[in-house]
């Protein structure tokens, strides 16, 4: 299951940040090889919902954007430790809904 669930409007763009401090205790930063990818509910790659990706220390950030109303996207943040080259993964389920209310 996803580590986190977020709802967003199709037209909304938000910066989402994941911290890997607990998962990569032997690293002090994550490298540029860290990635953010997304698939839709049919497990098809959906790169268009991931905008600019950046790293800072142990945090990996991505702009989550666009999408199709009614779709659920599984966004995978993969942080690679600069020292250990170990990969840690956290997932965010992004549900794109134009008419959803508060949870």
């Amino acid at each position, binding site marked *: 299951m996803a580590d986190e669930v977020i709802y967003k409007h199709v037209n909304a763009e938000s910066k989402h940040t994941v911290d890997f401090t607990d998962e990569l205790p032997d690293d002090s930063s994550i490298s540029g090889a860290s990635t953010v990818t997304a698939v839709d*509910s049919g497990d098809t790659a959906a790169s268009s919902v991931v905008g600019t990706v950046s790293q800072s220390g142990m945090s990996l950030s991505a702009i989550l954007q666009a999408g199709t109303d009614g779709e*659920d996207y599984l966004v995978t943040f993969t942080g690679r430790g600069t020292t250990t080259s170990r990969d840690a993964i956290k997932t965010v389920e992004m549900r794109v809904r134009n008419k959803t209310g508060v949870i």
Partner: protein
Amino acid sequence: MLLGEIKDVVRQQFGKIGWPTNMIDFALASARRDIEKNSEGGYYWMRATKTWNAVATQQSYSITTSASNGLNLPNFKDVRAIRVKESTSTIWSDVSVGEVTLEEAETMYSTTETTMPALAIIDNTTLTLFPIPDAAYNFKMWHYEWTTNPTSNTATADELCTRFPEALIYGALVWGADQYNHDSQEADRWAAKLREQRALIHRHSLERERQDRITLYPMSGPYDGRRRTSMGRQVWV
């Protein structure tokens, strides 16, 4: 409704983030299986056809795999009818199916008899033809297949999602209440609602079956001399 909308309705019962999506996928898959398991034979959206060619001297064919000229129908549920014709013919002939068992059929035909098959036996996942085909006859089978939920939230072409979404919702809630929340009283409540939906589906499917019924008249007579089979005895034509 779209599958994504159905998921949202199910989620709403347990809190929007209270129930993981993969669990909802399991629940909806269970709901569909539950609905289709309770069909007698199958519902109209489960209808399918398959054409294939027999192989000379090959008597048995896997239904669910493609191994050894198999039919490769992994979701096969039940047969409705089978027809056969010579590859140069334009007229289909009836193949008797579902009337005798394999053990009965083996006493009706010799182990070496070859001609155009007149009898098909479905035994577990194997289709066996009697007599053994002596040429690459064309076959066509009308059957029911188990179906699966659309993979995408936004797919639009699924009959169960479109016409009977409530059945999927109630079925998923039965699964969720029982298997995930361990609340049998709540599961019973949704099961009662699911039964109502099943009755509606059953009634509608019966109406469709009656209206869409295809009557096929097998060619027979002096130009099609071959043995036919009826229940319990052999008929020589």
